[in-house]
């Protein structure tokens, strides 16, 4: 289980990195960030990139700060950075809670937030967060910079809108209103395993009713997404078992789950229902 040979490039600046990426992208070149998903795929020789552009030494990509109402997360920011609350208020708390579900501690010390988004594994917790909170992804290449909405960015199982020569330089998460409530629930076989289903719910209460309700589901379909059919059932309603059940049923109805011998579609659908309801209960 030894990786196939590749050429290694360790640029120091973003411009060097993008220039290098532009050069090697057509030659099966890839970005190496935390490497916690890529390197296993290489060890199994499923992935055999001819070039790796290691961005771990690139200055400026370790940004983790608030900027114009967003939390900006640079390409080098590791999962472990979120163990402590990175912002006061609900967003920091939400990220800290979700971080505990991301694989295991020694993986979190290497793996990066943006790397998870770019890998777009259906089971990725950060992808659900990005999709649910409508994160914006900033993709840079020698050709320029473009900003993508989560809805456009995530296209399918391990498939994103990123071009081969593009680097996901940073992700921008909108700050949450101080009174935002949230709940995150995930089901996996063992501690730290790939999630089979996840749900993230956020809402605020105004005069006792839910507003700005968001519900995102991950692991169930090929890509994480918000479920408008469920959100609409929450908006303007008082939090309560009945409402939550209705929203959970709507979520279960409207997903088109992945289907494989191990976890049939029907099972993933049931999990989507359970995780949704529990996330809502947790938030309330």
């Amino acid at each position, binding site marked *: *289980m*030894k*990786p*196939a*040979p*590749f*050429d*290694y490039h*360790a640029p120091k600046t973003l411009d060097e990195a993008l220039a290098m990426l532009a050069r090697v992208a057509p030659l099966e070149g890839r970005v190496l960030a935390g*490497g*916690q998903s890529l*390197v*296993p795929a*290489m*060890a*199994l020789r499923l992935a055999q990139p001819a070039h*790796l552009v*290691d961005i*771990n030494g690139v200055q400026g990509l370790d940004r983790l700060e608030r900027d114009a109402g967003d939390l900006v997360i640079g390409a080098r920011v590791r999962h*472990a950075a979120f163990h402590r609350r990175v912002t006061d208020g609900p967003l920091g708390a939400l990220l800290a809670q979700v971080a*505990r579900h991301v694989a*295991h*501690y*020694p*993986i979190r*010390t*290497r793996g990066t937030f943006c790397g998870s988004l770019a890998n777009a594994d259906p089971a990725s917790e950060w992808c659900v967060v990005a999709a649910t909170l409508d994160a914006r992804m900033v993709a840079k290449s020698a050709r320029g910079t473009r900003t993508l909405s989560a809805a456009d960015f995530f296209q399918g199982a391990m498939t994103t809108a990123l071009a081969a020569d593009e680097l996901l330089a940073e992700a921008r998460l909108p700050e949450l209103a101080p009174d935002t409530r949230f709940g995150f629930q995930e089901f996996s076989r*063992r*501690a*730290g395993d790939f999630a089979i289903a996840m749900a993230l719910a956020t809402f605020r209460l105004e005069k006792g009713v839910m507003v700005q309700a968001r519900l995102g589901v991950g692991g169930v379909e090929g890509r994480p997404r918000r479920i408008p059919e469920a959100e609409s059932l929450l908006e303007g309603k008082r939090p309560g078992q009945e409402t939550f059940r209705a929203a959970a049923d709507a979520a279960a109805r409207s997903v088109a789950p992945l289907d494989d011998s191990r976890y049939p579609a029907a099972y993933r659908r049931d999990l989507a229902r359970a995780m949704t309801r529990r996330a809502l209960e947790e938030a309330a």
Partner: protein
Amino acid sequence: MKIALKLDVNGREHAVEVEPRRTLADTLREDCGQTGTHIGCEHGVCGACTVLVDGEPVRACLMFAVQAAGRRIRTVEGLASREGGKETLHPLQSAFMEHHGLQCGYCTPGFLMLAAGTLERNPDIGDDELLEVLSSNLCRCTGYKNIVKAVRAAAARMRSRS
């Protein structure tokens, strides 16, 4: 094409020449002669190869040696302290022996480094968080009970010292 680099392993510098694809785990074992770091799966799940890089536990099978140049690497061989010819075991090492926290010993270096990286940073770690951290590595012999006992005991000892 091999790359020449210097690795700081347990405070000692090792000059090695490796292909970019060579993992840190293989380099520590084969090029630096530090075979205490074990290889159990090579795809980042079992944790037998866990070492500390700049104080943080990482999977040495998921890092390329070229990425470790200039970082401080600590392996199980560097866990005990040595003064003159005398070796003083790390509290974790003694605790694993006292509480029968190992049988075949293959996963032990990984667990020791995982726990060392965690406890040295935070000896006051809560029990639930401790179990979460220990769930990072696999052991096939002990059923974990004695590993947990040993790490708790070592944590207590490290707290009383600090």
